[in-house]
């Protein structure tokens, strides 16, 4: 694995909650992908396949409650099932961090959701860390450092 092209998090109402691009694309191309994929994936029936061809690449998606996790991958390079598992691992990690994560948590703590993702996937789209425990440790350490910074700022 794996060099994913992008990861989008879209709500049931078609609102993009998170987006991360791992390959350089123009704003126009990004907008086109979002505008094409949102109605396409939201309109799919529950028993339809979670992997589909789109443009020159493949798209895999998985729905968790009211949120759709969408990943663009390179055919014959990336493993579709591994990507589905990556999504599941990401959701599980957020679930532990936020405590039963919901869409509202992601809206109001989007920076933290990006931090968790950044610990799992590197900026070129390759998998950086698959251990939930390690990811949570890194994010909680960041939180601790952030708290200390705030404290030092006040004390100074």
């Amino acid at each position: 694995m794996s060099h994913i092209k992008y990861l989008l998090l879209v709500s049931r109402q078609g609102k993009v909650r998170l987006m991360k691009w791992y390959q350089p694309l123009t704003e126009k191309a990004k907008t086109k992908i979002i505008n094409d994929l949102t109605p396409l994936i939201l309109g799919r029936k529950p028993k339809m396949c979670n992997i589909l061809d789109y443009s020159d690449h493949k798209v895999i998606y998985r729905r968790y409650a009211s949120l759709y996790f969408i990943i663009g991958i390179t055919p014959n390079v990336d493993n579709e099932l591994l990507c589905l598992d990556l999504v599941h691992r990401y959701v599980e990690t957020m679930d532990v961090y936020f405590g039963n994560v919901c869409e509202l948590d992601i809206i109001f703590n989007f920076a933290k959701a990006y931090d968790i993702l950044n610990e799992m996937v590197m900026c070129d789209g390759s998998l950086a860390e698959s251990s939930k425990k390690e990811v949570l440790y890194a994010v909680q350490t960041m939180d601790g450092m952030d708290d200390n910074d705030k404290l030092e700022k006040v004390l100074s």
Partner: protein
Amino acid sequence: MRDKVLVVLEERGAQNTRWLTDVFGDGITGETPIYSDLTWTTKYYSETFDLYVDEYDDLDEWIEEFTSDDCAVLRDALAGVILVRTGIATGDHHSQRIANSLSTDDMFLVWLDKRESVDDRELPLPWEVVQLEETARDRELNEKSGAARLKEILDVHTWPGTDRLEQEPADMDELITLMREARLRCQDMSDDEESQRYAMSLAEQIAKRI
């Protein structure tokens, strides 16, 4: 300002009353056409809104009136519409006519369906079909329907001027007094390890307050 939620009922009955109360709270039964200054509170924000309740005998006639120029002011003030209906006709034009009359970018449109089995993807965006009653499948897949899903939709809606509940600003005098007392207490402690532990717990307490 888009701070009004419009509920459109098929008929005013016991079933309607129950979900309205579940979603909007005690006393919201749908018998009054306007409920003003209701508060929607989540762990992140609190927002005041008005709830308008209307009903229709003939949906075509209701849509005719709703999409007319006379209702332009109302349409511009809506945060969302919840339309109660049993079933969706093939090639449904009702949903399309309502959506076309509204600026749907910053509002939610919910088709609350009373059928026993409903696919939430039956209508294209911006509509979401919500099943009124929770089914065994929903429970199994941990998916929300009915009042629970409606609450979720209202939670994640971008209300105008929604401000995250502000944390009370830290009272500096109180913090300084706390630190002075802690310093005196630390001086009295003979055990280094104990004073270190105390200092760390105090630092955490202060960090939480700021």
